[in-house]
């Protein structure tokens, strides 16, 4: 496996310098360009990923792996069914795209938890592990004799993360214990789907609740599970004790994005779906251009005025009609449609790049001028994933890594989402074969 060619440090200094900053900062940023050879934050932490047919567990394990933990994926001899969950059935060497995407820095160990021997081996591993992740029905591991109750007796420092649709305790958890998890049901049950989609007045099925185009609920739950694990690691430093962490995927969106509960509480009703519009701000959304779409955010009044000037729409009838924030509240959709139509009549005359350049030039003038009212509308070209990754910026930041695998060929992974000066995350290897590290694991952890 080789990675893409590294950009020179010179490039970075050119792009990292800030007029007001000292050379010290430039050096710091230059030193952060390359993660290789630096220590890792979670060095020495051993994570068992016993998740089954559930990407929330796999994703949580990925976060630990990217930051340096030894992550051991435990799966039955036929493999985790998650390997086959892949868009349109596209696989490479029998493995699905999402699984490949999360197959970073992991070890693969075959262990059949349905058998007695499998469970015995798991106990042995758990005695030496710091964290275990599982996604079986609530109480399943316990009934096998390898739940938190039993494992914490054998290893009181163990951190046990359980991910299920409705959690580990309470009437709901018990009633729905046997219901398996999936991303789309978690999107529905956590309040995400309800606010994506066209408004009531549009046509079916566009005005139905809509799923987001990536496994948002699983990614959020996975992040939350990793967060629970990290908090428990810190608490273990204080107390010497492990603990159990309960992640319900039906909580994921509501607890991460906060708005559903805040609105449900203070409005005492559900918010409607608004299609391409936003609740708090207008204009705040995507607009057609000559060659695609741009995202425009110009919510404040001075931003809005500036946008009108840029689009050559600064006419009395438009400006007066939509002058203040309260003239642009998205509760009156026909009005907002009218405004959008006016704006699009101008945006469609330009290409996306032209609009971005025009706005930037305008904003540069405004920030230097005391007279123009300070409006800074934000305009950005709407990229599809295939065009987004081509920007030079991501090349300089090494945000995408090209992997060249003898069996899988070349493919790209989004990596290094945080740049850290001491312990940067990194992808050291990508591997995916079932049981690939059986010998290594047996020798390292099960030899006594």
């Amino acid at each position, binding site marked *: 496996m080789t990675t893409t060619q590294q950009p020179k440090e010179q490039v970075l200094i050119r792009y990292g310098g800030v007029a007001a900053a000292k050379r010290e900062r430039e050096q710091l940023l230059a030193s952060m360009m390359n993660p290789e050879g630096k220590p890792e934050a979670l060095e020495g932490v051993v994570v068992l990923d016993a998740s089954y047919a559930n990407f929330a567990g796999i994703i949580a394990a990925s976060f630990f792996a990217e930051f340096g933990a030894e992550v051991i994926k435990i799966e039955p001899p036929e493999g985790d069914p998650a390997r086959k969950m892949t868009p349109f059935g596209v696989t490479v060497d029998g493995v699905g795209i999402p699984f490949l995407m999360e197959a970073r820095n992991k070890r693969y160990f075959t262990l059949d938890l349905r058998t007695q021997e499998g469970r015995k081996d798991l106990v042995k591993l758990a005695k030496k592990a710091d964290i275990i992740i599982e996604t079986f029905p609530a109480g399943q591991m316990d009934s096998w004799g390898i739940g938190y109750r039993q494992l914490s007796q054998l290893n009181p420092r163990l951190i046990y993360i359980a991910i299920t649709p409705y*959690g580990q*305790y309470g*009437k709901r958890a018990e009633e729905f214990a046997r219901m398996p998890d999936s991303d*789309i049901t978690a999107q529905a049950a956590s309040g995400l789907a309800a606010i994506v989609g066209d408004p009531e007045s549009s046509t079916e099925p566009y005005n139905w609740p809509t799923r987001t185009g990536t496994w948002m609920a699983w990614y959020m739950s996975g*992040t939350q599970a990793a967060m629970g694990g990290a908090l428990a690691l810190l608490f273990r430093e204080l107390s010497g004790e492990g603990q159990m962490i309960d992640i319900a995927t039906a909580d994921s969106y509501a607890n991460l994005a906060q708005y559903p509960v805040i609105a449900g509480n203070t409005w005492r009703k559900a918010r409607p779906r608004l299609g391409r519009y936003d609740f708090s701000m207008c204009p705040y959304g995507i607009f057609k251009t000559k060659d695609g779409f741009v995202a425009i955010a110009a919510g404040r009044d001075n931003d809005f005025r500036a946008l009108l000037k840029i689009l050559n729409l600064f006419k009395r009838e438009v400006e007066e009609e939509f002058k203040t924030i309260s003239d642009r509240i998205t509760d009156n959709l026909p009005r907002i449609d009218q405004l959008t139509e006016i704006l699009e009549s101008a945006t469609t005359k330009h290409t996306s790049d032209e609009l971005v350049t025009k706005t930037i030039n305008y904003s540069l003038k405004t920030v230097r001028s005391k007279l123009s009212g300070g409006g800074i509308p934000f305009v950005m070209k709407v990229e599809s994933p295939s065009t987004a990754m081509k920007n030079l910026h991501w090349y300089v930041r090494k945000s995408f890594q090209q992997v060249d695998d003898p069996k899988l060929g070349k493919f790209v992974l*989004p990596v290094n989402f945080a740049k850290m000066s001491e312990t940067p995350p990194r992808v050291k290897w990508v591997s995916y074969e079932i049981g690939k590290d059986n010998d290594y694991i047996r020798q390292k952890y099960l030899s006594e």
Partner: protein
Amino acid sequence: MEDYFRFTQTLFDPSRAKDKPEPLKGIRVLDFTHFIYGPTCTGILARYGADVIKIEEPGSGDMLRLGAWWGKYWKHTNPLSHSLHHNKYFVTINLKKPEGKELVYKLAEKADVAVENLAAGTAEAWGVGYTQLREVRPDIIYLSCSTYGQYGPLRFFPGWDLLAQAAAGTITITGYPGTDKYYKLPDYLGDFYPGTLGALVVLFALYYRKKTGKGQYIDLAQVETLTRLLPHFTYFSITGQDWERTGNVDPSMAPAFIHKTRDSKFVAIAAGTDEQFKALCTAMGQNNLATKYPTELERLKPENAQELNRIAQEWVSQKDAAEIVNLAKQHGFPAAEVVDDYQITHEEWRQERASVETFYDEMYHEFILPGPQAILSKSPSKVKWLCRPVGYHNRYILKGWLGLSDEELQELEKKKVIGYWDDRPGAKPPIYYDIDTDPLFNYRGNGGGTA
């Protein structure tokens, strides 16, 4: 052995959570953030026990305070500020004054973490960047949150949620194929999610510091955290094609979709494994399908997936939502009704579980908050107080932590280095509240606070 759910009920019992220890006890955070992205990060740290000092400009404070959506304030506050800013200390410092910077450096001596989400390089230019704070606190962990990161050609490009989504490609993945219907990730998820990941990275850095004593600088770019959510790049690099939008259908499982039921509700169902598919077939009374499409990859072939989704959608449209969920529970496949804001807030089981928390606050009284991101058995999260007016904790922190005297405080007030709220909704106390008798706001102790 004791019944499993009785055991877990005792283990996690929400009514006992307030007596349990906090995982981040003693961690001190200097918070230079505003709006949603940065505050989400520090808010998570505060909820799990860190002392977060939110440094605001005197007068208006964080701009988020002032703009409640659709002008709907709650007791003169933006209701979102309570879920973003609970448990934080609200201190105003004018960073443009040299005395203001001095105060920050004194606070930084006692801080473990600092977080900012200003434009790249701004914190440095204001004198409160990493290279400056590490002079007074060499092992500080400093997180800079920005849209494009601190280096690279686009580093000065302005941006927030929507713009980051546009640049990362998350806007083009949701919606219906062959139409202009694109939907962004809702509710500023492009701020909330990166903020959450920022907290995760800080926790990892804190763990490393516990082990080695070393702090560090973290450069978090919103766009990069959003690209981490997309297998679409890998898909494109392998197939050479963009992953087309699929509306309400999940193309990675078959069947998997959201559909309208007979009683005009919406239900999501999915069959991600062979067992789940068999269970669904049994529930639909179509066991022949299970033999016809025995494997996941067979079912995922586009023509088969289309057929299976069609059959299952028809079945869903002839049943009531409750019926489908019951069948799913009985047979063992994933199914869930689409729930909206109101249901989430008021469903009994969420309150019971404390996924949604009703909190009684001294100043704002009863308020319902979203639950914590993760529920921990031994060191759970706690809500201690809601958002407070601008400058509310000035005296408590500056006297208690830094040991300043009343005269020194008055001097700073006179020089406009510190200050209190403007008379406007979002910044000021609620109208019914008697701030003059508030013991924390009028903190009388000296040097004896939490320092």
